[in-house]
């Protein structure tokens, strides 16, 4: 597995030539590795299963189990898959270079979000309501207890 710190540069280094197919494969693999890091850091074995034909989506689902804030990157993963399909299934089109470039940006976003979240677990907890709603610890802590 590529070290997390090296993934950003690896994504940036992916170029369209000579083979856009290979480039899209590489970006998809790097995106999977980003989530593998997240899953591994949670003490789990990254799944090798597929979801809707993609391991990335299965990995995301695994990473979000018990941590709803991780859903803040669910659409990002789906967009990576969508762009992968666009690039690999319509690689003869003139837009392919642009689409690959977009896929790189989306992959970078995934990397930035996940690596940020690995430093500060609370990242995304406001934005996507990460904290499980209604936990006993929530109820027992803080002001409400004394109210």
């Amino acid at each position, binding site marked *: 597995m590529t070290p997390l710190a090296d993934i950003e540069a690896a994504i940036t280094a992916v170029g369209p030539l000579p083979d856009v197919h290979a480039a899209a494969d590489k970006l998809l693999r790097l995106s999977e590795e980003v989530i593998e890091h997240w899953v591994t850091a949670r003490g789990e074995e990254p799944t090798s299963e597929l979801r809707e034909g993609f391991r990335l989506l299965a990995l995301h689902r695994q990473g979000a189990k018990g941590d*709803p804030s991780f*859903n*803040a*990157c*669910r*659409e*990002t993963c*789906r*967009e990576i898959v*969508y*762009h992968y399909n666009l690039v690999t299934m319509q690689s003869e089109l003139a837009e392919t270079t*642009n689409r690959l*470039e*977009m896929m790189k*940006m*989306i992959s*970078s*976003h995934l990397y*930035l*979000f996940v*690596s*940020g979240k690995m*430093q*500060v677990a*609370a*990242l*995304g*907890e*406001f*934005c*996507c*309501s990460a*904290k499980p*709603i*209604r936990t006993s610890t*929530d*109820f027992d*802590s*803080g*002001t*409400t207890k004394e*109210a």
Partner: protein
Amino acid sequence: MTTKDKYKKVAYYPGCALEGTGHAYNRSTKAVGKELGLDLVEVKNWNCCGAMEVKNVDPKLQTYLSSRVMSVAANEMDMDVVMAPCNGCYHNLKKAEYDLKNDPESVEVVDKLSKKAGHKTYESGQVETIHALDWIKDAIGEDGLAERVKNSLSGIKVANYYGCMYTRPRHIFPEKDAGPGSESTSKPHFMDDLLAAAGAENVEFPLKTACCGGAHTLSDSDMSTKLVLNILKAAKLAGADVIATECPTCHSGLEMHQIRAEKTLGETVDIKILYFTQLLGMALGLKPKKVGVHENISDSIKFLKAKGLA
């Protein structure tokens, strides 16, 4: 009463951000409402929705704070709809509504705190919380908006950026993903619909609900800058001239980190950032100042002049 009629007069909950960094959103929302003949009645003596500071420490206290806003609207103002343009406030009020409908412990805590504070306890279902997008979409609609357009936004390519709180978590928004005409949590489109009705050309934008890094803008500014820079570059690559926003946190984050990216990373992305209400207001014939363009951090006037909107 139809939804269209119901939304013609709503309780307006601006929230803290719209009195500070998001003041242009406040100004433009009110100006658009006035222009469209919609009545906004500000919630009396409103309080913080609980935002992230309270929610992260004690989610049930956040539920109470949001419930108080709804209680004032329902019990002291006799309103049945609360409109919150800020994604954070909208999200928190919806979350409180969900909690009070589904969690007896939350009901108990809210009742206890409401009694202590000396106001009527909010009961789930007393008001409906909506976003500014729902408000215009349902009260006026695309056709109604198109009829009122004086300065078409044609020739302006827009990337619509919704941020993450408008659609997540999906279970607190039961009205979304409810079939044709409803908002989608995975591919939101209400802002796209409204701006298209005003003549804008929406671009395909894959990061429309991606994280802007708002949550760690203070703890890790470099990360926020990189996330924003990525959003700006993706919008540019998608062909956009403008990123339209509907959240004050995202908006100020995009504007501030656009400048920070120039200073710290030497990366300049020439793309304008405007609230969707500012774009709609100008399409309805309002001058840029009326919709607070001068209050934005970035300067869009030259661009707006070139597009015939200023």
